[in-house]
């Protein structure tokens, strides 16, 4: 019996690993997604209680850091207001509103609630309660209020799987603004608070605190799955040595991937 189970596991693994069509799993997931949705809502108060304890520990050291960040943010906000005003005028002049450059505006947003999460850091994914009936398709980008969260990896009738940007299989072309250095955002397995912007051009210096957004490239008919300009994170560590030797910098994601509750799926965009 034991041998049968072991062989069965290997057979299942061989048959399903690396396959995109996971009909059986999608069927099971769809059947149980209403139950998961109810369980999610029922358990939310308990989750919030545990979250409160965890966040209380974290908040103790964050107050002073946030105060200093607020001062910088205020200065940036003033500068941003001016830039927005100028941008609106320029956009009107150039009629950029209908340009494909602003691909993000071509997306419809479908709001979904996270109903389940993978128990291991080796596979970083969540299940949300919207599926193909809501217009969600595989590879649609998923965002939260803070920035990019991931992309849809599998869709069922009433639920979808989101591969988070911290999953080991995730790779996103990104650029640092305002310097424009491009690279590929990859996760560091086991550390959901750290991403790596890899393959950057080491001749242009990147500094801590600079923002990383999706690059949204398009070349020879192939386009990135993500529209340009979606906020990804902030450069945290950018030592000259690391930039020159490894062509990479460390990035902290904007989105709080550990406490996702509501997300938005960008559906119907132009995809390559």
């Amino acid at each position: 019996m034991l041998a049968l189970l072991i062989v069965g596991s290997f057979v299942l693994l061989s048959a399903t690993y690396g396959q995109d069509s996971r009909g059986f799993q999608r069927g099971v997931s769809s059947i149980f997604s209403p139950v998961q949705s109810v369980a999610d809502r029922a358990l939310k108060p308990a989750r919030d209680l545990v979250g409160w304890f965890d966040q209380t520990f974290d908040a103790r050291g964050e107050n002073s850091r946030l105060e200093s960040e607020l001062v910088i943010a205020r200065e940036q906000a003033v500068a941003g207001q001016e830039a927005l005003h100028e941008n609106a005028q320029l956009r009107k002049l150039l009629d950029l509103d209908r340009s494909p450059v602003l691909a993000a505006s071509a997306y419809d947003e479908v709001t979904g609630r996270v109903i389940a999460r993978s128990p291991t850091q080796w596979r970083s994914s969540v299940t949300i309660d919207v599926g193909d009936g809501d217009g969600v398709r595989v590879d649609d980008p998923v965002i939260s209020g803070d920035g990019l969260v991931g992309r849809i990896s599998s869709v069922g009738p009433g639920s979808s799987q989101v591969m988070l940007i911290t999953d080991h299989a995730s790779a996103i072309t990104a650029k640092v603004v305002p310097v424009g250095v491009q690279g590929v955002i990859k996760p560091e397995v086991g550390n959901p608070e750290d991403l790596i912007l890899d393959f950057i051009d080491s001749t242009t210096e990147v500094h801590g605190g600079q923002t990383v957004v999706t690059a949204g490239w398009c070349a020879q008919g192939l386009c990135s799955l993500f529209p340009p300009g979606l906020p990804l994170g902030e450069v945290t560590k950018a030592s000259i040595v690391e930039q020159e030797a490894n062509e990479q910098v460390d990035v902290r994601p904007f989105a709080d991937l550990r406490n996702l509750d509501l997300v938005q799926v960008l559906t119907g965009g132009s995809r390559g």
Partner: protein
Amino acid sequence: MIMTPKIVARIAAIGFLGVLLQLSFFSRVELFHVSPDVLPALVVCLALLGGSLTGAVAGFAIGLFVDSLLVEALGIASLVLLGTGYLAGLFRERFGIHSSLVPALLCMGLTLVAELGFAAIQLLLGVDAPISLLIVRDMLLKSVYAFFLGWPIYLLVRRVLRSALVEEPRVQRRRQPTVLGA
């Protein structure tokens, strides 16, 4: 354990609720930046009460259910959890449960084994990203959480399956010797 359809249904219900709780609650809460993983502990408890075969079958089924719900490749969680269940059952059959600490300690130890097993399989299949050393902290803290969660899970599972247990350990109080006539 005496396996009747009713008991099998109860074990299935325990597994179902365990998976649901794991995905909807335990995976989504964090203490010290680590989420507890109760599934290895649940399989260990089932194996301690039912033996190695029960543990292996329960582990396989629970793993299959988890992978199906998460729309992942089937077999990884099944393989890890069936091994966990088999080892726990084997322990019970060889050594028995002589102390109330045994279930909690086994939950802790075998959760670590399960985490290591999962990591090994994942590494064999290939990981496309660098791996942080924090994954070790994750594994160790998950084991510690399993120690604290293992005992209540064991008591709960034992209570639900009580009617099927043939070797329910009974703690008997020794009566003090009495003097005749006293």
